[in-house]
C-alpha cells in the first residue's frame, strides 16, 4: 500500500457500483437464501418445476443458437469489411451498426409486421399460392432467434472487424505461397487468429440475448417465455419478488458459467505461447 492514489481514483465508481448495483442485488437475492434459516429450497423447487425448466432450457437454447448464427454471419462479414479499402470501410461499419441506433421496441415491431399472420412473408407466400394457410412464425422460439440475431449481430461484427484488421495480411499471403487457396488460408490462418474476437463477440451476444427483455416479450409472446420475461412476469404481474430474485441469480450464474466455458474453449484452441521473447 505504498501508493494510495489509484484507490482514490477508483472510489467514485466504486461507491456508485456498491450503492446502486451491489446493495440492491443483495437485498433481492438475500431473501432467496434466507427463510428464518439459510436454505437452498427456492432454487431446488425452481429446478423441480417442469415449466420453469422449460423456460430455463429455452433461454439457454435460444441464446446459444443466436450466438452461433451471429458467429456464422459475423465472421465473413467482418472479414470482408476489414479487407476493403479505408474509403468504404467507414460506410460499411456505419451500415452494420445502423440497427443499434434504432429503438429496440421499434425494431421488434418491424419484425412483428414481417413475421405476423398477416405479415409480409405470409402475405407474399399466399399471393404466390405456395401456401394456403398462413404459417405461424410470430410468437415462436424462431421469432425470438431472428429478432435477437438482428439485434446483436452488429456487436459481433464490430468486435471482429477490430481483431481481423490487426491480422497481418502477409500471413495470408504466406499461407498462399505455401500452397493454400483463399478458403484454406482463411480457415487455417484468419479464423484461428480471430478466435479472441469471436470469443468476446460471443460473450456479448450471448449475455445480451439472455438478458434482453423487449425482443422476447414482443416476438415470443407469453407462450414462449425466456428467463427475462419470466422474471418480469413474476415481479411485476404476480408481485412475487422471491421468485424474481431466484431467476435473477440463475441468469447471472448461467451467464458467468457460459462465459467461463467460452474462455476454456478459446484457451484450448489458442495456445500460442504465453511468454514474450
Amino acid at each position, binding site marked *: 500500500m505504498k501508493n494510495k492514489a489509484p484507490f482514490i481514483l477508483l472510489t467514485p465508481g466504486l461507491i456508485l457500483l456498491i450503492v446502486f448495483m451491489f446493495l440492491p442485488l443483495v437485498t433481492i437475492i438475500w431473501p432467496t437464501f434466507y427463510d428464518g434459516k439459510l436454505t437452498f429450497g427456492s432454487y431446488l423447487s425452481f429446478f423441480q418445476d417442469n415449466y420453469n425448466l422449460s423456460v430455463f432450457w429455452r433461454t439457454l437454447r435460444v441464446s446459444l443458437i443466436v450466438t452461433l448464427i451471429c458467429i456464422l454471419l459475423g465472421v465473413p462479414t467482418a472479414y470482408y469489411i476489414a479487407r476493403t479499402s479505408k474509403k468504404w470501410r467507414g460506410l460499411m461499419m456505419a451500415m452494420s451498426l445502423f440497427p443499434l441506433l434504432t429503438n429496440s421496441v421499434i425494431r421488434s415491431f418491424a419484425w412483428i409486421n414481417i413475421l405476423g399472420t398477416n405479415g409480409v412473408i405470409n402475405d407474399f407466400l399466399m399471393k404466390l399460392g405456395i401456401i394456403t394457410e398462413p404459417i405461424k412464425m410470430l410468437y415462436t422460439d424462431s421469432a425470438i432467434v431472428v429478432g435477437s440475431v438482428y439485434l446483436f449481430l452488429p456487436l459481433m461484427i464490430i468486435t471482429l472487424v477490430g481483431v481481423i484488421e490487426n491480422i497481418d495480411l*502477409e500471413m495470408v*499471403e*504466406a499461407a498462399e*505461397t*505455401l500452397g493454400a*487457396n483463399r478458403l484454406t488460408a482463411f480457415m487455417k490462418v484468419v479464423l484461428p487468429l480471430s478466435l479472441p474476437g469471436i470469443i468476446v463477440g460471443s460473450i456479448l451476444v450471448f449475455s445480451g440475448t439472455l438478458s434482453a427483455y423487449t425482443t422476447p416479450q414482443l416476438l415470443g409472446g407469453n407462450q414462449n417465455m425466456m428467463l427475462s420475461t419470466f422474471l418480469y412476469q413474476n415481479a411485476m404481474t404476480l408481485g412475487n419478488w422471491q421468485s424474481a430474485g431466484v431467476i435473477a441469480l440463475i441468469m447471472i450464474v448461467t451467464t458467468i458459467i457460459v462465459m467461463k466455458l467460452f474462455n476454456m474453449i478459446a484457451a484450448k484452441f489458442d495456445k*500460442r505461447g504465453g511468454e*514474450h521473447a
Partner: protein
Amino acid sequence: MTYVDLKDIRVSYDGKNNILKDLNLSIEKGELVSLLGPSGCGKTTTLRVIAGLIEPNDGDFVVDNKNLTRVPVHKRNFGMVFQSYALFPHLTVKENVGFGLKLRKEDKTTMNPKIQDILEVTGLAELGDRYPKQLSGGQRQRVALARALVIEPKLLLLDEPLSNLDAKLRVQMRIEIKRIQRKLGITSVFVTHDQEECFSISDRVAVMNNGIIEQFDTPEEIYNRPKTEFVARFIGFENFFNLTKQGEKTYTTSEGHMLKTSQSWDDTKLVATIRPDDINILPKGTEQDTNMIPGKVVVRTFLGKSYQYEVETNVGKILVNGPKETAYSSGEELLLQFPEEKLILV
C-alpha cells in the same frame, strides 16, 4: 540457360501510372539475383509479380519453359520469405515449417524427417516446439526461411528479409542465407535497398529505378563500371561533371582540361564520375598534366581512416578522400589527379 524469364512485364494500379514499365529479367538456374533500388522503384512489385501476388497488366512470366503468368500463387510452389516474416503465431515452429507439407497432404512419416532436416540446416533443431513469440528476431527469420525451403520450391523469394535485424545479426544471417542457398542450389530472388548486403550475397544484381532495370550485372561490374548516372549515384559515386569528346578516349571538361579515359563511348557529350577514394591528391606546384584539375579545399572532414575534402574546382565541387598522414587545411590549393581507369563515363 535461362530458368526464370520476365518478358515485358507491365504493372499499373490505376491504369495511368506504370509501376513496372516493360520490365525484362532473365535468371539462370541456381543463381541468386538481387533487385536493388530505392523505395518506390518497383523491386517489391517485381518480386510480387514473380510470386503471383500481383498479376501483371501485360507481359509474360516463364519458369522452366512453362508460362506461369496466370497461375495463382498457391499453385506456383515458390517459397517466399516476407519482410515481417509472417510466421503463424498460433502454430509452433514445427507446425509453421510443416504448414506447406501438410497442405500437400504429405504423410507424417515422410513429413517429419523433412521438417527435422530443414530445422537442422537452419539451426533450429532445438526450438521445434516453441511458438514464434518465444523466439528472437534472428530465430524467427530462420523459421521463415525454413518454412519457405521445406516445400522444395522451384524458386526462393526474399523480400528485404534482413531489414528487421540489428546490424551484427544482419551480416551473420546474410552469410547464412548464402550458405543455405548454395547448399540447396536453389534459384533465388532477393529484394533489398542495402547495397552492401546486396553485393555480398548476389551472383548478379539488377539495379532498379522508376519501374525499369537500369543495369543487370555482377556486383563487381556494377561497383566498378556503373552504366548510368542513377546506378553510379546509388552505389556511392559522388562526383559528376560534363565532358565533351575530342577523340578516341580523349575528352575535355567545360574549362578545357584534358582527360583520358579507358572507356570509349560514341556520344560527344557525356557525364564522367569517379569515387572520392579513387582521386589522388597532389600538392600545388606539381607539373600540370592530362587528367589533372586544380582546386581549393573548402571543407575538411575527418572520417577515421581518412580525411574527406570538399574541393572547389572549375568543374564544380569534388569530394576527395585523402590519407590521414597529410592533412590539407581549408583554403589550401592542390591538384586533383583522376586516374584514367577509375574515371567512369555514364
